[in-house]
């Protein structure tokens, strides 16, 4: 329980800044991503859950290519850097030869759903004991805001200037719902980083995914909705609400599959 703050006198120590809270597994907290980006909170949540579960000295992250790739050299976790779209196959090979390791991928929606959709589907269907994490901001953030396969209808991007129109650009893919029915899949959830409550839920989802992998139950997947005010062409402060209203109404947060609960329910 948190102690009730004494407000009768000024605090004895200086106010702490974000950098003062660097988690132990982040070597350098000063990231290079845009203000308001949701990816740092997502990645921080992932490495903190690895640490809290006591899995640190077994963990290997397999990174795709996107804005988040800039975290691969600043995390104090082993990293295999994969090509755009190819992290699930690299994770598969690594996990098969190092079965005691905890292997998780970090990919964006462009990386996983556009470039490498086949990889994640087959990795899930094989029931590989790896965790795939998709940071879904609905755009190619690194290229400056272009449509991906998860871009919601009506969203304006640099190559859907009038908004995503299903007649011309097709419909978005709901990745979590696509993977959940596959037999090899043990855990699927979609979280979001747009407010503290959602981050709290997200941390529990990530912990569940790593536990499922640790316990050898099968493939686990966590999709994380992240803000990208730069790629959405909106004010930084508007991004959390935009995520909540526009993205989360199509890509709905929640736990979509957990085989542990199914077993308990009989």
């Amino acid at each position, binding site marked *: 329980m948190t102690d009730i703050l004494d407000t009768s006198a000024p605090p004895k120590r200086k106010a702490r800044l974000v950098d003062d809270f660097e988690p*132990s*597994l982040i*070597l*350098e907290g000063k990231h290079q991503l845009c203000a308001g980006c949701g990816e740092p909170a997502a990645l921080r949540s992932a490495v903190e859950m690895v*640490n809290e579960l006591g899995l*640190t*000295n*077994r*963990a*290997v992250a*397999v*990174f795709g290519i996107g804005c988040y*790739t800039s975290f*691969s*050299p*600043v*995390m*104090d*976790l*082993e*990293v*295999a*850097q*994969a*090509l755009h779209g*190819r992290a*699930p*196959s*690299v*994770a*598969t*090979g*690594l*996990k*098969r*030869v*190092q079965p*005691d*390791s*905890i292997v998780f991928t970090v990919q964006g929606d462009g990386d996983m759903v556009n470039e490498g959709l*086949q*990889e994640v589907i*087959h990795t899930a269907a094989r029931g590989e004991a790896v965790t795939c994490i998709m940071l879904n901001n609905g755009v190619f953030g690194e290229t400056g805001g272009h449509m991906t396969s998860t871009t919601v209808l009506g969203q304006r991007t640099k190559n859907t200037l009038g908004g995503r129109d299903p007649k011309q650009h097709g419909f978005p893919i709901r990745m979590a719902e696509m993977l959940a029915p596959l037999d090899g899949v043990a855990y699927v959830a979609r979280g979001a980083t747009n407010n503290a409550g959602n981050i709290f839920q997200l941390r529990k989802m990530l912990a569940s995914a790593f536990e499922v992998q640790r316990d050898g139950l099968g493939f686990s997947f966590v999709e994380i909705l992240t803000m990208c005010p730069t790629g959405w062409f909106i004010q930084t402060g508007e991004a959390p609400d935009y995520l909540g209203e526009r993205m989360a109404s199509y890509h709905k947060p929640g736990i979509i599959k957990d085989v542990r609960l199914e077993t308990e329910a009989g």
Partner: protein
Amino acid sequence: MSAELLEGSEALAKAMISAGCRFFAGYPMTPFTEVLEGMAKHLPEVGGTCINAESELEAIGMAWGAAAGGVRAATGSVGQGLSLMQESIAEMCFARLPLVVLNMARGQGDYFQATRGGGHGDYRTIALAPADLTEAVSLIQQAFHFADRFRNPVLFMGDYYLAHVIEAVDTGPAEFEPLPAKDWLLDGSTSGSGKARIISPLMPVKRNAEVFVEYGDYLETSGDKIAKMEQGMAPLYEAGFCEDAEYVVVSYGTPARIIRYAVKQLREQGIRAGFFRPISLWPFPSSALADATWSAKAVGVYELNAGQMVDDVRLALRDREVESIGGISFDDSGFGIAPELTPAKVEVRIRDAMSRLGMEVAV
């Protein structure tokens, strides 16, 4: 171990396992399929893993992951499948990862793909091309050694003939110089230590390393890496009847086996022909070729394509007349069976070439 009668593809699989290969992934395509079958059969017997991948892209991705985990890994296909793998082959060179890639090629149209690379950026891969099964089971083991020694993918060039020839071969382990331990492999053990490892085509170390290498500087190290590999490995070749030869035929792979036989037949008839066979296509045995052809008035290149290796022969022998005497030859199976590749037809081509150049070819 002693020799046993084996089909080529199964012998290759057994030799790879003798070399310590414990991970294999592939997508079926004849005549690579047969090697994949051999690995699927024999790898589990030694506790290894063989995965039937969903595509060539994923096959090499899986092998990439296994290599990063420190295990000797291989994949392969035919030239078509290798086209799909080029991005990963190039980037694994940048990431300093060992891998053996088999190209069980259809014909010899993949010489440029193997030696120039179909991928992007500045990289090179050692390419080894055996002429028969005995040499193949030895070279495939050397391929794993070179891959680990240089931390670079190595190509092994086979074909339909090699996959299906049945010969008595010893697939037991070969002896090699000891290699340093893989102190770079990923298993999670360094996570949280402040010195977590990274294997990346983008950088060699993490941000907190004593000497961090920026991306541009890292790319610039590729030239040194290629030079080290080229200087560190003596090109492999075989030469025969070259000492007083008027005409030397250069050929690699299965056709070179036929050329070797044809040249021997010509010698028995008193015709001064010789042969030269590059075994490593990269690094190409340029100076050995120059030495072997010192007495020759002209050099012919026999390859089952429209003329690819002939470029390397011309680069090696800039003062000598060099011509192509091979050509594309396919039967309708599409598997790379060459109707032109018979000892009699090959002998006629050599005779005709020598005769055109005014050399003595009368019996």
